[in-house]
């Protein structure tokens, strides 16, 4: 029987075949697994980031609306008894307003109600028990 040059080449290749060892296979699976873990981590981070931006923008619009409503309202000497009007919150968000009163004598703001013609209004927007935005403005009696 006479073999051609192609047959010799195939013989050579076949004899030198060792196949993949278990360690090589495990390494391959580990690398693929590592890649998948990175991909999943990227997706998760992206989703968290988008949700944070979403929360932030909605909270900012709520805080802004609340401050604008207080700015538009007439000055209330005692907002504890006669509160400023409140913005309608978006579902899942809580808007809270706290007032501090200026003390003309000391120049400081105090939570105790007094009427020296200036109030510091702080609006806090929270969702899921976490404060997202806190912003403050001043209300002047004029």
């Amino acid at each position, binding site marked *: 029987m006479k*073999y051609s040059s192609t047959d010799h080449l195939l013989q050579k290749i076949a004899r030198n075949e060792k196949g993949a060892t278990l360690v090589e296979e495990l390494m391959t699976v580990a690398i693929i697994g590592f890649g998948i873990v990175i991909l999943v981590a990227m*997706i998760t981070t992206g989703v968290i980031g988008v949700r944070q931006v979403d929360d932030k923008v909605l909270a*900012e619009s709520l805080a802004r609306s609340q401050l*604008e409503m207080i700015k538009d309202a007439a000055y209330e000497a005692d907002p504890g008894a006669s509160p400023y009007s409140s913005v309608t919150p978006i579902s899942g968000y809580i808007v809270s307003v706290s007032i501090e009163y200026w003390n003309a004598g000391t120049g400081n703001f105090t939570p105790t109600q007094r009427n020296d013609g200036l109030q510091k209004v702080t609006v806090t927007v929270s969702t899921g028990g976490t404060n997202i935005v806190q912003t403050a403005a001043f209300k002047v009696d004029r």
Partner: protein
Amino acid sequence: MNMTGKPRDVFPHFNQERGTSIVEVLVAMSISLIVFGVIATSMVQFFLVTRWGNSQLQITNDIQVASLWLGRDALEASSFTAGTGNVYGILNWPDSSHQFRYSYDALDQALVREHIVDGLLQTTHTVARYILDQNDVSFSTSGSLLTVSITSTSGDEIKSVNIEFSMRAR
């Protein structure tokens, strides 16, 4: 391929090979299926989440940008004149020398702001880019309080907000 002999003659060492059992083949196929299943699921999730994130950022950006422009203009304006047709209305300075006209661009499905000085158009800005319908934006006033409602839509994602703006008293 030039094969002049029988495979057994060409590859004599094949006679000593055991080959793989059906159990080994099934296990290999199972592992391959699991690996490819996980990869395929990851890829599909990657594209779905990317598209969702993109839509979310687009509509969030719409509301943020529109809110900034409207807040800026309302701070300068003392009155709002409701418009007709595709014009929502005009925010006016006390002496009307400066006006900010808000209208709907049906072609681009966008909310457009125009700055007019002494009756002459100065600049045009697109302040929201994902407004599918003219009714998705509305302006209303109560005294000097301007309420703007914006609904932005991108893909399957929709976001609506009402934003209040206090116009200058004088």
